[in-house]
């Protein structure tokens, strides 16, 4: 799961996949804008076959939060 997330995230940040850690903070460490996070969630929708609801994204701060969210959605 982490590898897939890293691959998608590198579409938005100029980093090597291994530089993206579970505890990386999206805004502070990866400099992702709120709009980039939204667009990225659109990619996850397609990749994981889930439907993301905008209102559920307010608690997502870190890569780990994304992993937990996607796992919950797939369950």
């Amino acid at each position, binding site marked *: 799961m982490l590898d897939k997330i890293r691959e998608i995230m*590198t*579409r*938005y*940040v*100029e980093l090597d996949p291994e530089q993206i850690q579970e505890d990386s903070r999206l*805004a*502070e460490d990866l400099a992702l*804008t*709120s*709009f*980039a996070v*939204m*667009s990225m*969630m*659109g990619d996850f*929708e*397609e990749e994981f076959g889930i439907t*993301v*609801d*905008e*209102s559920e*994204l*307010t608690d997502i701060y870190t890569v780990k939060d994304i992993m937990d969210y996607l796992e919950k959605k797939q369950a």
Partner: protein
Amino acid sequence: MKTNELKTIQDLIVLSARERPDKAWLKEKAGKEIAEKTFGQLLEDTLRISAWLQDQGDGVIHAGLLGTSSIAYITALLGCVINGNVAVPIDPQLSPEEIRDNLNRADVTVLFYDRRFQPLVESMRSTCPWIKSYVLLTTEAGTGSLGEILEKNAPAKKASVGPRQCACILYTSGTTGKSKGVMLSHANLIDNATCCDNEGSENDILLTVLPIHHAYCLTCDVLLSLRYGATLCINDSLIRLTQNIQLFKPTKMLLVPLMVETIYRRIMVEKKKNPLIPMKVIGRKVFGKDLGVIFCGGAYLSPELTKAYEKMGIPLLQGYGMTECSPRIASSSQADPSTGEDVGRVVKNCRVKIVDGEILVKSPSVMLGYYKNEAATREMFTEDGWLKTGDLGYEKDQRIYITGRRKNLIILSNGENISPEELENRFAGSEWMAEIMVYSENGQITAEAYPFPEYAAKAETLFRRKVEEINKSVTPAKRILRMRLRDTEFEKTTSRKVKRSQSGGKGRLL
């Protein structure tokens, strides 16, 4: 459409229905299908809503709208406005307390809401006794829904609406931390929707992406597409923008710099991975082959970005405005693009002058005032009636150049205006903190604190904890992303006010 026949939004709806009754104006995704509403249906449905509103109380009704763009939302908004009632679109990202406060201060007695606000509405039924009716924004029939109103009410007769009547109250950030309700009249909005010539055609397909509670979206997406008989497609979520571009194949889009920047950054990452693919090809892959132009406003747009988009073959046209001006003050077009340094040419009927470096405006688009806030309204105008924009700049050959801001607002690249005081007030009650200042640094909201010396050792932990707590309670755009801790007081003016422009950035970055 002859613009001299347009005096009110009612005229705009009636004329567009007369010219193209059967053409689809609005389109949105509905499961696997695409739902549509024609110009003719819009007129009929808005008059049905107006008929229902007549039964909701005496006099002019103030109707709140809580949700994101949809066919139902736009129909309800125009249904409020067509016969002289007032629409109050609320920012759906606000906290429940702020939503209640905004509705209360605008004297809203009817609320249209998206399904996702159902839980909030349930709690409001007991806590907001001033709201008499709630309407679920869905075209499906069902008790308490917009669908039911459309089914059960015959269209009202057209009422006489004066151009000076208030059509909308839109909230904008106040510099004292409390948002203010900008009253825009029919004449204000019509003037702004007709302040440029030849800026659209019936062949245009617009994808509306920006929040509908913003004047920019209301005027330049909704009213302009009505004026030209263009098609307005609804982007249901920013999450699905790329997919919606592929689906609706827009020819025009209105975006804010944040979006333009983010999309560009993504394109550049792609380009680095595939250096042989030309920029134009990558651009077309992302934006579709039909997109001819992007209009950009709401915040500073760098000239480099304009040039980069040019390389992709997509003109990026800049404008300048504010909610109080409905919103456009200056605009650019493909025939008359900005040079990259200016923010566009002053629009028709608008006069601009510079006093003490500040841009002042007089135009038929300038608001009626702030709702029930005469003191704030007075403060916004000079004695001879010029609106003070708070922006510093100059005008040359009818083009506006912005150099800075007089007021204390932080303008983020997504066009959101944030009052630093609003965030500073949230630190109140932190016993460790002597002084706090919030400002923008490198485009990120930054909080800089001076702790009382006895808390120096624990200050960092306490500061981080407090910021985390605040960030959980505000919308994502308002989150504090940088922190600085200082060991000296902020520089003050003689009246002991923090010198905002000189004080920030001296603390240690955490």
